[in-house]
């Protein structure tokens, strides 16, 4: 009988799962393909997290410290799982560093991949230096100064375009990425805090700041920071002769075409399935749902399950998810995996 759970992925969900397994008195082997733990918030340099408002490096940093300081958690960085043999209760995992580990169950906390804005070339990313993604803008917020990458001037106007890589059949993304509306409202407030003279406009189809994010982010951004929300799906981002960007579209509510000058355009990029999911599905023998995320087992009595017995999942591996919910699901998946060990 193994007393160990294999946790794949060292982001918020995986860190939470590993810490939970250890707290329950069992051992975890945490495998992370990058050379650092922390997942997207750390690797992509997020600024302040939604909804806590704490800097990612502090909040997620604490999770990393907790796991790295735990003798019951063995961490393998820059490592992948290349092979999984055996069955529920008695798996043997082969790692890319040559190690093999005996585990009773597996938690896939393999997360997501940020949408690559290159796939929407009409919105100017990769063509114009002042077109950025939300992650790049968060990095700029982290640096403490809001300026145009092209020439360093302070932007008079910033446009945030929602649903970039989400809700778009043209590029096969038929899901809502769930958190970009809230992240964008939060980002707009961070921009206004650092650069009060900059006007921030958010171009939206719908605003989906669900639950308690409604007043804390959407309303607050309007009422306290005077962020302007414009109902328009942008058709194209081009440049004008004076070097500013031109945002073209139809203002849905005015029923008129618009061509408005901006200094920075931010893509609120969505969450794609992890680009390694086909490989993960093959290695672990789990199914993917139709969009390419890890497929869920029947959820009511087999919480955190996948299509294979003994293998569990959580967080953004299942589909677009918030950091807080990923952490909660990671904890649930870790303990669900531990329950298998107890029975074995």
């Amino acid at each position, binding site marked *: 009988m193994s007393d160990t759970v294999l946790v794949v992925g060292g982001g918020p969900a995986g860190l939470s799962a590993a810490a939970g397994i250890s707290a329950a008195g069992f051992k975890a082997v945490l495998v992370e393909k990058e050379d650092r733990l922390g997942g997207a918030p750390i690797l992509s340099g997020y600024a302040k997290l939604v909804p806590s408002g704490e800097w990612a490096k502090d909040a997620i940093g604490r999770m990393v410290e907790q796991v790295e300081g735990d003798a019951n958690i063995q961490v393998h960085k820059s490592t992948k799982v290349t092979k999984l043999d055996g069955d529920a209760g008695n798996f043997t995992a082969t790692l890319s560093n040559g190690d093999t580990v005996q585990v009773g169950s597996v938690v896939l906390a393999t997360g997501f991949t940020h949408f690559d804005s290159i796939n929407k070339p009409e919105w100017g990313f990769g063509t114009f230096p002042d077109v950025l993604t939300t992650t790049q803008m968060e990095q700029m917020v982290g640096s403490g100064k809001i300026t145009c990458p092209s020439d360093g001037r302070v932007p008079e106007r910033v446009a945030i375009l929602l649903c970039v890589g989400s809700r778009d059949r043209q590029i096969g993304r038929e899901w809502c990425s769930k958190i970009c509306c809230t992240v964008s409202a939060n980002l707009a407030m961070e921009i206004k805090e650092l650069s009060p003279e900059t006007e921030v406009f958010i171009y939206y189809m719908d605003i989906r700041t669900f639950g308690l994010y409604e007043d804390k982010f959407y309303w607050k951004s309007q009422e306290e920071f005077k962020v302007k929300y414009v109902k328009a799906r942008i058709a194209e981002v081009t440049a004008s002769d004076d070097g500013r960007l031109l945002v073209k579209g139809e203002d849905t*509510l005015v029923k*008129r*075409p618009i061509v408005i000058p901006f200094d920075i355009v931010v893509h609120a990029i969505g969450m794609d399935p992890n680009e390694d999911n086909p490989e993960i599905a093959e290695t672990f023998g789990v199914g993917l749902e139709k969009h390419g995320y890890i497929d869920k087992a029947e959820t009511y009595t087999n919480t955190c399950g996948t299509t294979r017995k003994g293998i569990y999942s959580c967080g953004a591996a299942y589909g677009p998810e918030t950091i807080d919910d990923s952490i909660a699901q990671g904890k649930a998946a870790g303990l669900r995996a531990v329950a298998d060990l107890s029975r074995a």
Partner: protein
Amino acid sequence: MAIHEKSLIEAERLKTADHLVIDGVDVSGHWNTMITPRTLCDYDEHFEKTIQKYGGGENVHRCWQCGSCTNSCTMYAQNVNFNPRYWIYLTRLGLKDELLKDKDIIWQCVSCNRCTHICPRDVRPEGVMKALAHWMEEEGITEKSPATVFDEEFWDQIAERGRIEDSEVLKNFFQKTGQELTQDWLVEMIKRMLKHLPFKHLFRSGKNAVMHPRTQSWGRTGEVLKQYVQEQKEAIHG
């Protein structure tokens, strides 16, 4: 070839020239009509702040365009072009040209305040309608309302003399608003006064109407009041 379906295009967007040369080519004649584009090319983000300085407009930035104001609106039921939600949106983005297309109906708000009580974000749309109407009046976009003309006449006399002369307020108000001086109800009232009121009172009224006396010890009160009002206006509107 001329443009056949001109009726489908707003008149102000059709530009016709007797002689027209484009890129060195003379296109006078059949090709002389051009249509200006419908594209909106900029926002005026300061306009929202302007409207917020007028009483009632303070909360306009809260609007999220749910349309509760318009669908509860008394005037919208009469005229589908009366759309507070839309004007609030135009105010927020500073699309003044669009807004001014409706300058002749915005003032029609009857202040029933159904919008005020239904608005989920406490925008107070009725206040915004009032603020817009006042802004248009001050900018000379719309004519002063009769109520404003009356108020001004009333206030001018108070500031000057510390009192009003009823007959003069009425006379000037009628003149400024282009109304007949000999209104039926007025003629009837004077007739009855002549019939029933004591001669002494009539004499004093008549004398005041001609002499315009000041209230006793009015002194510089009017000047001080005027200065105060001016300061308040400047403090609000900058």
